[in-house]
């Protein structure tokens, strides 16, 4: 837990530094803008510049994450004293399966669209992670996308991307739209 606490705070600190660096950037159309010219409280007598808000808040974030790191190193917080693992074996398995499954789900959407990916994700999740009977998994995997199609594509006219499966939907559009 302590190592995780430290690593997380370090990641936040690095991200804060990046945000501070990025805040100081002038607009891209002005090549002469000097970095960090826009973070002052009264830039060109026009009040705080565009980088004022994000820069100083990122600095506060940086300072806080350094405090968290120090606390972790000195074992001052309950997390840094805890001997428990950050994620136990079961937790790690869960994280890889569910988190990885979710990312795969999005990748599938990018290739075969929402209506290709949804049944696959639902069936895989309910059948293999949930260990429910296959007929129940199949039922949910089919009912949910059909409901979504009529709700979004037909009723709300929000067309969810179909990507490769687009041709299959053309007859459906002709019937319902």
């Amino acid at each position, binding site marked *: 837990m302590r190592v995780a606490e430290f690593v997380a705070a370090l990641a936040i600190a690095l991200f804060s530094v990046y945000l501070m660096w*990025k*805040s100081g950037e002038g607009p891209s159309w002005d090549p002469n803008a000097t970095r960090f010219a826009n973070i002052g409280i*009264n830039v060109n007598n026009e009040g*705080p510049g*565009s980088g004022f*808000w994000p820069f100083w808040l990122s600095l506060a974030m940086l300072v*806080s994450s350094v405090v*968290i790191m120090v606390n972790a190193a000195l074992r001052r917080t309950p997390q840094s004293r805890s001997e428990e693992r950050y994620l136990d074996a079961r937790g790690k398995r869960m994280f890889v399966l569910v988190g990885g499954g979710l990312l795969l*789900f999005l990748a599938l959407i990018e290739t075969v669209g929402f209506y290709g990916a949804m049944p696959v994700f639902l069936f895989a999740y309910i059948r293999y992670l949930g260990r429910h009977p296959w007929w129940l998994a199949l039922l949910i995997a089919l009912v949910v996308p059909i409901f979504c199609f009529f709700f979004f594509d037909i009723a709300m006219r929000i067309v969810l991307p179909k990507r490769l499966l687009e041709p299959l939907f053309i007859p459906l559009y002709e019937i319902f739209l």
Partner: protein
Amino acid sequence: MEVLQLLLDGVWAALQPVNLGLAFLGVVIGLLVGAMPGLGSVNGVAILLPFTFVIQQLTGTVSSPMIFLAAIYYGAMYGGAISSITLGIPGASTAVATTFDGRPLALQGNADRALVIAAVASFIGGTIANLLFTGAAPLLATVALRFGNPEVFALMLLAFATFVGLGGDDIPKTIVSICFGLVMSSVGFDIISGAPRLLLFDSTEWFSRGIQFLVLAIGVYGIGEMLWTINSTSNDIKMASAKINLRRVFRALLWMRKCWKGTLIGSFLGFFVGILPAAGATPGALMAYGVTKMVSSRRRHFGSGEVDGIAAPESANNSASTGAMLPMMTLGIPGSPTTAVLLAGMVIWGLTPGPLLFTDSPDFVWPLIGSFYVSNVIAVLVNLACIPLFIRVLRMPFTILAALIFVLSVVGTYAAYQNMYDVWLMMFFGIGAFLLRILDYPLAPAVLAIVLGPIAEPTLRQSLLLSDGSWMIFIERPIAGPITICAIVLMLLPLLGLIRRKFRAMRD
């Protein structure tokens, strides 16, 4: 008497078939999400917000989608008690205190009594809070009309200061969470000069439109919290059985006589705690439980199934949820994560939250207030009628529920912005939120901050422009001054505690 007339018109509008139907649907959904362990009102409201655009399109009014979401909020406060009592695990954090006495009473075979008392106490709490709200809101809005930029910023500061001072979470982590939300709200372009800024990783496709509030909210509450619940709960939960019929309800109602004290304490205390930014229904319910126990003559029976110990937190969480609406509607500052989502919804529907709402959009405000009364009645009736049904639904395995919620989160995010970048971003936020949640980083401040950021930044910058860069403007103005000083004191509160502890340690 003008208020009474407006209220009656509002109730009448809320009773129109469409609104009544939406309130009913919202209450049922709210009861379910409230009762499901791992899901609370904020998850329900955040995940369903994208779907309210349809309601707005179909009804052509802005009050109807809000009535729907407010009914979910309301229903969830009732629903939390169902799983607290029958499962012994709170359905939502707002119902934590309900487990203290509700669970023992259920294990003694009196689950029906506990459920009925929870429902009736919730109803009384909600009604008292509605009356307080109706009385206070127009007045507060009138006062707030005189607020300028420095005053509004001072209020924002106060909202964040309460998180730091009273949040009870690790302070550096709370600050990280707040700052992260505020910085993320400024990604995209500068609202004042129009200049692009913070295009992270130099990607215009991903960040030039800024980071939408719902992307973070659904990521945190639809993905992050779900992963956390899957990780932290095991599947072996023992369910207390509850038989309910009309006779049992009436018999249980007689028990209400024994818990008027807890109900009243919960109703009033809950409302005032709910108003405080960052406090909301969870601390409201816990405080009501504590105070009721303190003043009760049956103090020793608390924790072993005392009815007052159920009535107090249940009336308080309902009352607090209405209280949290007060600053949201009148000042444009949400008092809880759920109201932050509601506030963002109002912005998306084209309203400007704040004191002008009462004068500019009375056709939004009063039907909504009317719907509080109507939803409250619907909630208590549906709750009492459907308890057996809800108990059956609670047996729905989490593995199916989680899969549905994941799909709903992804589809909802896409439907809201019609853009796959936002869906990926939502997923990254969700996974990041889970990893930080294990280390006890509070995530609600980040969600609140990304909502308040676009209000706080311009008010701060315009105030500083007005004062030529002097911070004294926040201290010298008559209304902003006291608010700023309160905020500073609240922020220093934990520091004082630290010094006192050090001092004591040195003396020992």
